[in-house]
């Protein structure tokens, strides 16, 4: 495998960092993870100092020499200021909500300051990372600048590539504060696992039918299922119940919110089964199943999931839905 030099470098660097800096869900910036080096502007500043020194020396002008030493001292002092601007900052990951593969995972990070320090002009973005031979672009830079609040929470979008547990790339935190002469930075591996569900893909009708019909005698399409919801009676509406069940006609007449109650006439229910898709790649099966689960859940239907080594009993509701998607996301890859 012939990688370009740049790719090799990036790969070497990320391996090195992976060994040296393990993932943690909380990092405090201190001297063992902060780096500091003059920026390009700092180089120019040194050049300016050189020029002033030449001017002062050649004209034997003590005042210009004095200014030149002042600038040098400012550079020295700003090393400290730059370092202490980041020092003590604490980054921790918050629980991030799950996403479907290909969507942007919003990684929520919490920044806490140490004591009452002010941290200014801190740039945070994802470090460019090598992933399966491709170098990922670093994400959008976000600026952190706060004085009064003790914590700041920020969302960092990152593209998810594959199903399963996703770990965000390393995070770069850097700052040129106060004068831009120096760059203080650190690269952190944040432990912020995001569950990535399979990308939902609609399978063709036949396969769906076969999957749904597994436990019932007559094959039943999900579409026909909805039609057979039967209007049963009215109940007073309570807050928190789905709005789409409100009987608006009755509301118009009586100004009281009623809820339409449906009874599911069908005695049977759907089962999503791994084995309903014979001869199809395992990833694709998961994607079909995922699509099915979304669809059934939207219809508030009762369904179960059967995967090799994992069975989820019949149920409905949000929690069940999450459980199913979770199982699909964490299904082992090589089965």
């Amino acid at each position: 495998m012939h990688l370009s030099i740049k790719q090799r470098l990036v790969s070497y660097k990320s391996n090195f960092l992976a060994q040296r800096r393990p993932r943690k869900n909380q990092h405090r910036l201190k001297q063992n993870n902060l780096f500091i080096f003059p920026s390009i502007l700092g180089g120019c500043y040194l050049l300016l100092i050189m020029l002033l020194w030449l001017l002062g020396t050649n004209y034997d002008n003590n005042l210009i020499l004095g200014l030149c030493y002042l600038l040098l001292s400012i550079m020295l002092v700003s090393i400290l200021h730059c370092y202490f601007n980041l020092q003590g900052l604490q980054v921790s990951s918050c629980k991030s909500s799950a996403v479907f593969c290909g969507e942007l995972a919003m990684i929520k990070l919490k920044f806490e300051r140490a004591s009452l320090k002010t941290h200014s002009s801190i740039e945070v973005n994802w470090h460019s990372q090598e992933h399966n031979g491709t170098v990922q672009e670093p994400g959008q830079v976000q600026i952190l600048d706060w004085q009064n609040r003790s914590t700041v929470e920020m969302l960092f979008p990152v593209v998810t590539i594959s199903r399963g547990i996703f770990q965000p790339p390393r995070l770069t935190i850097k700052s040129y504060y106060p004068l831009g002469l120096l760059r203080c930075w650190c690269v952190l591996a944040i432990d912020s696992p995001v569950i990535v569900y399979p990308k939902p893909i609609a399978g063709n009708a036949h396969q769906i039918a076969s999957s749904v019909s597994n436990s019932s005698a007559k094959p039943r399409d999900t579409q026909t299922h909805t039609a057979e919801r039967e209007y049963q009676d009215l109940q007073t509406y309570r807050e928190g119940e789905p709005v789409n069940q409100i009987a608006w006609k009755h509301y118009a007449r009586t100004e009281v919110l009623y809820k339409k109650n449906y009874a599911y006439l069908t005695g049977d229910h759907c089962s999503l089964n791994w084995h309903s898709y014979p001869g199809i790649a395992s990833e694709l099966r998961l994607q079909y199943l995922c699509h099915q689960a979304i669809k059934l859940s939207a219809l508030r239907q009762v369904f179960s999931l059967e995967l090799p080594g994992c069975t989820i009993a019949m149920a409905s509701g949000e929690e069940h839905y999450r459980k199913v998607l979770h199982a699909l996301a964490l299904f082992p890859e090589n089965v």
Partner: protein
Amino acid sequence: MNNRGAKLRPADINWLATALLLAMLPLLNELPWWMLTLTVVMYGWRVQINRKKLLNPHKLLKFAVLIISMGLLAVSIQNIFSLQSFVGLLTLTASLKIIELEQRRDYLLLVFLGCFVSASQLLFDNSVLVFGYTLGCFFVLHLCLLRANFSPLVSALLPARELRKVMVIFLQALPIAMVLFLVVPRIGGLWQVPLNTDVAKTGVSDSLTMGSIGLLSQDYSPAMRVTFAAQQKPSNAELYWRGVVLPYFDGRTWSRQAPQDSAQPAGIKLLAKPQQLQLNSFAKQATSTKYSYQVMLEVTGRRWLYVLNTAVIAPQSSDWSLTQAANYSIARSTPIVERYQYQVDSYLDYTDTRELSAAQYQIYTQLPDSLDASGNTAATNIKSRALGRQLRAKYPESQALIAALMARFNQDFSYTLNPGKLESKNAIDDFLFTTKQGYCEHFASSSAFVLRAAGIPARIAAGYQGGQWSSDSSYLLVTQADAHAWVEVWLAGKGWVRLDPTTAVAPERIELGSTSLIAALNTNMGFVVQLNQLSLVREFRLSWDKVNYQWHRWVIGYDNQLQFSLVKKLLGGVDAWRIGLLILLVVSAVLLPILLMVYWPRRKARPAPLLISLQKLDKKIAGLKVYRRKGETLAALLDRASLVSQVNKGIFSMLGDKLNSALYGVAASQLTDEVSRTRKVSLEIDALIKKIKVN
């Protein structure tokens, strides 16, 4: 650098333009005025472009402006290879760059250019005030730098916060910079650079016309400052700062060289080294008193130095450009275009037993008509010549003759600063026989004339007389108002002897110094003098001068030699490790407060005794597996604890009452600072806590 803030905020541009204008302002002394106008126009244009009122100038237009302004600069500054043109070019670049101020890169470039322009003003003026001003400019420029570093997304920045940050950085950097200034060795010029030579000539000139010194009588600007070694200080009457000797007289003006030589460049006939040594040996006589002193001379634009006669260039002075003439005046090979410090030794009361050569005798007794080339003997100042001859006849002894002349002055002459106009042709006659009032140069000039007429060699010496001691008497300040002229006469067996006819007329001029005398003379003359009389103003003038003097002595004049001696004095040696240690010490002195500031908040103040008791309680009940929750009051906590451990119920209820009343009760709010009481209560509470039974 990368992707940060490519666009600039309007406020940034305003700040930067302010900083640049501030940096350019003092340079207007040296540069043509239109450069400021150009800067303002460019800035205005930029602002209009940002407001979308004007378009970016076309490339050609920009080029044309560049060429035209370069041409104008070349015309305004005659010498293209001078310092002015270099600074002018720099300033021009900065002001033209403003129009292109679009990106962060341009902005930063301008900040750096501004630093350079601001620093270059120190090439022209190096007073304390200008240096302070430059520091101010650097401050604003660094403020710009700080602003540039903030992302434009963060628009709501508090100027106070930025100001504070830059201020803190400057205050921390200053001590380090000072040490660097003190210890980093100077290398000296690496290559030849054009110096700033256009300096106006001030102070005493190389010719003396009646009335010329009077012009200086109210100029209180410093002429020189003198620090005497050890505690020896000559009396006021001995402080004759001799600068230039004027042997030639053309009837109106005393000058340094003969009128027929005026085509040649002015110059003192300088002596070679062996002759100088011989001269020095005359001066160094056992009888004479030696004074060592250091003079800081203000810019004069001339070459001669002012010293007490008879001076010898101090052997420790490293400046080889100083040379001495036969008449003991000292000169430098180049004009004094910046403040100059020199070290000399003076031997007062010397006698020269040599003979005056015939040629010299001829020069020093020369009177105008005797040199008239056309043979026209229409002599001027006939009465004065007659007076000379008359005195000679009466007193064959030179000293008696001089005494008679002085007595004459003392009798009917008066000292004034407003002598009125004298007849131009026979000025000396007019003064001696008609007006009979004048000041030093009138007396000196006429005395020398009469003495020459009497056949005694005489010449005029010009310089300063007296001076004011600084408030702590550490140095002597000589101002232009102290300018003075006197006569030197040749007495056989004694050599050149100083004769100050002004002492005969107004001895207080010499004893009190010019300032008080002039004040006495002009009580109702002018505002300046009256102001000068006010002691407060005078005090201020003196203390301000002291600041300036120390500034020039220690900062501007700080050189390798001074550095060496100072470091040696401070550290006891100039080894590398000592200097390293000093730098380390100062850096840590700056660092330590910062580190303390950073780490201090973590260490909390020692909590009050009651709070310590509470922490003990927390630990104790943790043994019962009861943990205090946030937002839980003491009573609630203890109730919960009682449920867990019935045994301790009684203790808990007592503790609850005690703690509540100690923390919140009436006594707690009234006697919060009564340490002994709270301590007593906390002891009781601690005892109770100990009683809690934990299994």
